[in-house]
């Protein structure tokens, strides 16, 4: 039950990120000028007939955020009461602290007229909250401890770097959104008809960095997923997130292109934001599953093709048995 609730909280957080994307994409961030009230009303009693224009997006975002905040409070309490692993309980507390900080950042960015650093931090922390809820949902699932894990150091490094690169790419994307650089390069796939822009401004540099970042992320995802599909194909817990990650990457690149070509159509733009979160979560799940041995789950070499064994350190069966005399001959 705890796993299903955690998965529900993660889904609600993804919905919240989409709603936040709609707020930015429609330019509605200041449609409600006060916080935490809404035009002087409590946000929970603000009349529905006044949810018009930009208020609809901003007020919906605030309500969903409040619900997600309450869900994470409940999740942290549930973990505190029922979870035996201390580090998992701490993940719950961390998620709670992160979502509270996120709410305060959201309020401050409204009261201070959307300063770029605060708005970018708000966007970046949203992804952290989502990652924490996804992690809690993953490690409370029955599958987390089921079956012997793979101890593949190359896979661990590849997936960790990929997840870090995706998060960095999301931060560059958030910077691009909040500095209004989304259409600084108006054509796609070229930049002003060339591979490298002929002119440079801060906005063009940020936009171009996001495009170069997309290529780097695509290379990392292809390397990580390719490694899994070639060396660990029988392992469903690695194969499925890899395939999903490849699919999400393709969708995300298409959405990025459409965002430029449509002139930042707000729905496409917002889907690009939330799909970015899904790509990050997919890579995180793959990373955590690659690191399962570090979480105290027993190692095994099952499912690994022989060609991959050069970088997989699996102790010989005999070495796992302690020598009763205290030392090996």
């Amino acid at each position, binding site marked *: 039950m705890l796993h299903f609730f955690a998965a529900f909280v993660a889904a609600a957080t993804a919905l919240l990120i989409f709603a936040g994307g709609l707020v930015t994409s429609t330019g509605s961030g200041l449609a409600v000028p006060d916080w935490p009230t809404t035009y002087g009303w409590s946000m929970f009693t603000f009349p529905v007939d006044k949810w018009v*224009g930009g208020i609809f997006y901003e007020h919906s975002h605030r309500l969903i955020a409040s619900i997600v905040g309450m869900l994470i409070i409940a999740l942290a309490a549930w973990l505190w009461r029922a979870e035996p692993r201390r580090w998992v309980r701490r993940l719950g507390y961390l998620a709670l602290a992160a979502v509270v900080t996120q709410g305060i950042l959201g309020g401050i960015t409204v009261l201070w007229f959307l300063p770029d650093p605060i708005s970018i931090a708000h966007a970046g922390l949203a992804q952290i909250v989502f990652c924490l809820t996804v992690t809690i949902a993953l490690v409370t699932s029955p599958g987390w401890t089921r079956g012997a894990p793979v101890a593949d150091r190359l896979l661990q490094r590849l997936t960790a770097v990929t997840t870090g690169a995706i998060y960095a790419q999301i931060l560059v994307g958030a910077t691009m959104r909040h500095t209004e650089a989304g259409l600084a390069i108006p054509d796609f796939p070229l930049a002003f008809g060339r591979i490298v822009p002929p002119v440079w401004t801060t906005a063009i540099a940020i936009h171009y960095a996001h495009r170069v970042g997309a290529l780097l992320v695509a290379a990392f995802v292809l390397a990580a997923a390719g490694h899994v599909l070639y060396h660990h194909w029988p392992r469903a817990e690695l194969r499925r997130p890899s395939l999903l990650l490849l699919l999400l990457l393709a969708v995300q690149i298409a959405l990025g292109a459409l965002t430029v070509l449509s002139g930042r159509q707000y729905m496409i733009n917002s889907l690009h934001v939330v799909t970015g979160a899904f790509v990050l979560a997919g890579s995180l799940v793959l990373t955590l599953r690659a690191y399962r041995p570090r979480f105290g789950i027993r190692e095994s070499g099952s499912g690994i093709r022989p060609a991959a064994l050069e970088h997989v350190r699996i102790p010989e069966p005999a070495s796992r048995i302690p020598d009763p005399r205290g030392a090996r001959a």
Partner: protein
Amino acid sequence: MTRRVWIGALVLASGVLAAACGGGSQEDAPPPPVENPVDPATAGGVTGQVTFEGTPPTLAALRLDSDPNCARQGATTPNESVVVGATGALQNVFVYVKDGLGTLRFPVPAAAVVLDQKGCRYVPHVLGVQVGQRMEILNSDPTLHNIHAVPMTNREFNTGQPIPGMKHTHQFTAREVMVPFKCDVHPWMNAYVGVLDHPFFAVTGADGSFSLEGLPPGTYTIEAWHERLGTQTQMVTIGATETGTVAFSFKSTT
């Protein structure tokens, strides 16, 4: 150690709260004079015309359907970003004395300038106000608006008017041409306010004409500002009781 952490947190929280509440010191400027420094016996003026050269852009009307309360007053509202009359007269150009008044200081009018929100648009679209003069922003619509001023020099503000008939009064503290106003609830709504430390400004009407009255003799830089077509300046010299004439002609920038 723990006490230091708590004191640090309190100081940080106080700073955040002070900033969040919009705290900030007002500029210490001497009070404006009561008397007009210009001798009415020698005062002259500058008049002129602003025109658009070429074929004016065709702008689609702005749809109001994202708010049913606005749509009930009319499905669309005219796009006022470039308004050209039949003879090429360019409307909504802010014309003002940019330079030439020296150290002269002028009294602040007691009457307030009014910016109304009516039909889910700002009326007027372009206006001027003096530093320190009261500016009243009304909500004459059966819906709510937020008034979001986005100045570069003055203090930014964003105020909600959820109830029809509400009025917000604001006074700018520094000269600034122009201060954009927008409504984030209704993204098509925008207005521009020129803030000056003297009364010599005007906005062209439907005939494209303007008149700056009561200027002392001298040489002035006159600037014409348009929200999409940019700015132009001209020099004009007027003697005692004379009226100078200038003409501005804008072209499409696209």
